[in-house]
């Protein structure tokens, strides 16, 4: 999909940074649009088809979080949203629920940005095929009586890029974990690897981004996404 028909919208209130990002991406063959703040970006999004949005968070007039909230409310269904910020001041649970895929720190190297962008534009079928060789720090084993009931009770939800579910233990962010989740009634299992994106002790929920989904789980998980399309990258379960 890396070609001239892929349109990227870059939003930053820093003109120089906007210029540099635009140069990098047009060199890779993307069509690049720019906006200086959330309001300008929203104007572009409502008039043009955009495949990916790369946005700063702190901006005048309309900040990045307000922008993705509007996108979510307007159901603009952007395939990919990446936040870039020098300051970790956004709640990852909320951001991922609003469809944000990745939050990258500033300063940001060209390769890093392009790699994340490329990965986020991949077709879903080509994702999560290979387990990573990195060693998981933890294995999350849990069992639900029914998939249907746990979805209704917001105890298990699948998003575009990961799952959130009830888990009593608090986990460190960014930790690579093994997943072993069973649903008794449907006799389904979710086996795979994921990266902890957020962990909330208050309501015992954890948000995990998929890294690898085992073959025996792939079919029903992808079907779940199709049957019940959620725009959230990782739902917030509540």
């Amino acid at each position: 999909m890396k070609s001239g028909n892929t349109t990227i919208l870059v939003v930053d209130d820093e003109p120089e940074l906007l210029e540099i990002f635009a140069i990098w991406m047009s060199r890779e063959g993307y069509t690049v649009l720019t906006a200086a703040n959330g309001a300008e970006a929203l104007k572009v999004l409502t008039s043009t088809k955009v495949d990916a949005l790369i946005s700063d968070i702190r901006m005048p007039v309309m900040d990045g979080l307000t922008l993705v909230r509007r996108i979510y409310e307007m159901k603009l269904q952007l395939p990919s949203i990446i936040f870039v910020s020098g300051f970790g001041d956004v709640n990852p649970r909320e951001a991922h629920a609003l469809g944000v895929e990745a939050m990258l720190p500033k300063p940001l190297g060209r390769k890093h940005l392009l790699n994340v962008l490329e990965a986020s534009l991949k077709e879903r079928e080509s994702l999560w095929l290979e387990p990573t060789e990195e060693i998981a720090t933890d294995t999350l084993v849990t069992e639900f009586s029914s998939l249907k009931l746990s979805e209704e009770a917001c105890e298990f939800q699948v998003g575009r890029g990961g799952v959130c579910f009830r888990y009593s233990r608090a986990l460190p962010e960014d930790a690579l974990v093994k997943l072993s989740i069973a649903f008794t009634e449907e006799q389904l299992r979710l086996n795979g690897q994921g990266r902890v994106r957020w962990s909330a002790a208050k309501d015992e929920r954890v948000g995990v981004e998929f890294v690898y989904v085992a073959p025996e789980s792939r079919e029903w998980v992808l079907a779940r996404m199709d049957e019940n399309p959620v725009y959230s990258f990782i739902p917030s379960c509540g």
Partner: protein
Amino acid sequence: MFKSVGLPHGFCFLWNPQLLWLHVVSDSLIALAYFLIPLALIRIVSKRKDIPFNGIFFCFATFIVACGITHLMEVITLWHPIYWISGGLKALTAVVSLATFVLLLKLTPAILAIPHERDLARANEELNSVLESTTMCVLAMDPEWKITYLNGNARRLLAVDKQVSGKVLWDAFPAQEQATRERLEKVMATRNPEEYEAYYEPLDLSTSVHAHPTESGGVTVFFNDVSEQKRLQRQLEVERALREQRIESLAQMAGGIAHEISNPLGIIHARANDLAEVAHEGESVPSEVVIAACASMLKTSQRAMSILRGLRMFAREGTHDPMFMTSIPELIEQTVELVSARYRTHGVLLSIVPGVVPKIRCREVQIGQILLNMLNNSFDAIDGAGSTERWVTIGAAQAGECIQVDVVDSGPGVAPEHRQHLMEPFYTTKPLGAGMGVGLSLSRVIAHDHGGTLELTDVDGHTCFRLTLPVHAGESEAGVQAQPEGVA
């Protein structure tokens, strides 16, 4: 047995009328005197309750009355020979007299132990010198609040002489605070001691007071001058508040400042990254591209530096810094850099009004804190109002012998009821938790320290906070041009 025996005593005098009457008159007068003496004694004892040994007085009275009776009998026996009765009464008198003697003997040591008046006077003098030499102030009052004693320290501290003794406290020191008066009245009424701090306005005097009830029904007050302590305490409080405010402003702006610094870093990083990658790939980079990239990096790093310079406003209090010649327009620029992130992300336009003003002598960190405070305050006023017009201007101008820094905002203005309170410590119109309200009052304290003022006024119908600082004669240097710059 008590019948008359023998002849009347008059026979012995051969009824000589002169001799007879001499005895009658003398004995009668002696008896009268002896009857009157106990009355005098009773009067003394009843008036001087503090005189000990009431028993001996009773004995004296009895024995004297008895003696009086025997003399009366002498008169009667001149005509009536009732010598048995007369003798019996004499015997009784003898018993009472002996008893009195024995009692007097017994009491002798105790009576001798009664201090001599001279000794009492000396003891009194010593006590007085102790009270006069103590560093504590002593003020004694009787139950009617009349001042009975005031030691030397108290007279010095309260600036009065000994004439004040005998006056009623409330007349001698009429401007007492209500709280002080209530405390003293409480001690007088409850007879329980009290400790408290009092302030006496006419002398600008703070004291630490112990008020004690006395046995004679009055109140004695012991007090110390703590004015200096209080002044230091106030100063410490101001410094503490300054410190807290600095931390609060820092916390408020930390995110913005981090963003402000991460942006230039991001640009420099990206430019350098770009050049390095192109060079790695072995491509030759045209020199104008390198020059442009470097120019961008230099300009951007300069921007980051100026933000860091502005951060020294938080590095220390500045209260004890020496005063230096300072360019106010430069200080304005640096302060604006600090807050510009906050302004920009909330869509508030902040611009500097250019002006030429001489350098002034000041503690730049403190003046920077005032400017910061004014800008943050204006920001809050606009942000809270949600009005469509969102701008703030800051600029310095010379007005006679002073420099005026005006911070004007497009906000709704300050309601008249808030105006007079606005500079009071901890007064805030913001919701609870949104601000400490200590900022403006402290800013005003700093301005006063510099011989200046901070006031609220109007410019073309917009709220204006005006900082006025004096330009000291002979200390001004060449005018400094403020850079005209729209920041947001």
